[in-house]
């Protein structure tokens, strides 16, 4: 009985491996990087600005607490009033602000817009690819 279970499980694994291999071949080829949206900066360029960069984490506080870019200040539209003093403490006019979210999404764009328009901070950039760009090896 165990032999039959193992044999059938192995057949299912092989059947799954065939399309998985095709999908991996299609998706794992090196693709050219997508174009930058207005106000976006690539990670390599933002890293070259260091240490004159203030990283702003627009993801949730839980995600920020778990893992983030070293030195990043967390602020999102939900806790804007509460977190703005900490951000202003960390801000320096000589630093460029780079806001990042998960990968794509409105939180980083909203934070970047509010920093520019409400707080009159400049320059404010958005990280192309978000925090996931930082995670890529």
């Amino acid at each position, binding site marked *: *009985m165990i032999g*039959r*279970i*193992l*044999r*059938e*499980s*192995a*057949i*299912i*694994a092989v*059947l*799954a*491996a065939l*399309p*998985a*291999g095709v*999908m*991996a071949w299609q*998706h*794992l080829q090196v693709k050219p990087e997508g174009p930058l949206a207005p106000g976006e900066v690539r990670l390599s360029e933002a890293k070259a600005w260091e240490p004159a960069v203030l990283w702003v984490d627009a993801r*949730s506080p*839980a*995600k920020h*607490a*778990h*893992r983030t870019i070293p030195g990043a200040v967390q602020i999102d539209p939900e806790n804007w009033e509460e977190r703005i003093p900490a951000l202003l403490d960390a801000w320096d006019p000589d630093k460029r602000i780079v806001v990042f979210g998960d*990968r794509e999404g409105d939180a980083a764009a909203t934070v970047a817009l509010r920093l520019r328009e409400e707080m009159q901070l400049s320059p404010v950039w958005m990280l192309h690819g978000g925090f*996931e760009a930082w*995670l890529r*090896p």
Partner: protein
Amino acid sequence: MMRRAFELLLRLGLGGLFAFAGAVKVRDPEAFFWDVHHFDLTPWDVSIGIAMFLPWVEIASGIALISRKLYLGAIAWCALMSTIFLGAISIAWARGLDITCGCFGRVGPENATNYPQHLALNGAMLGAAILLGLLALRPSALRIVDGARGANERPEVRSP
């Protein structure tokens, strides 16, 4: 009759659920890769392997369950995957991760995982797989019981 209807319902339900879950992940493997990687349990390359392979195992197991081909293997895969999902979701919950589990791809709103709901669903899936396994193995189990009874019981002696 009742047992057959119950088994059919369980088989179609579990098989359909796995096939659906695999199909929605296959539509966007990159998003599923990030969902896997955000669990923070596997290195980059392993997360890629899981994102490519797991959806197809779900589809293959689901179809096998529905069609009742490679049946025991499909039940074993469903039980194994449900156990792994339960473990991964429990660990993520214990660590307080604010993530989407990716269980059904990006169907529905992309909110953080509702851990109790997902644990209950995966627990039910594991329970269904175990039940299907027991129902599939029941004939041999009955033979064992019959054999034991035959060895221990005295033949009934009827008086003339």
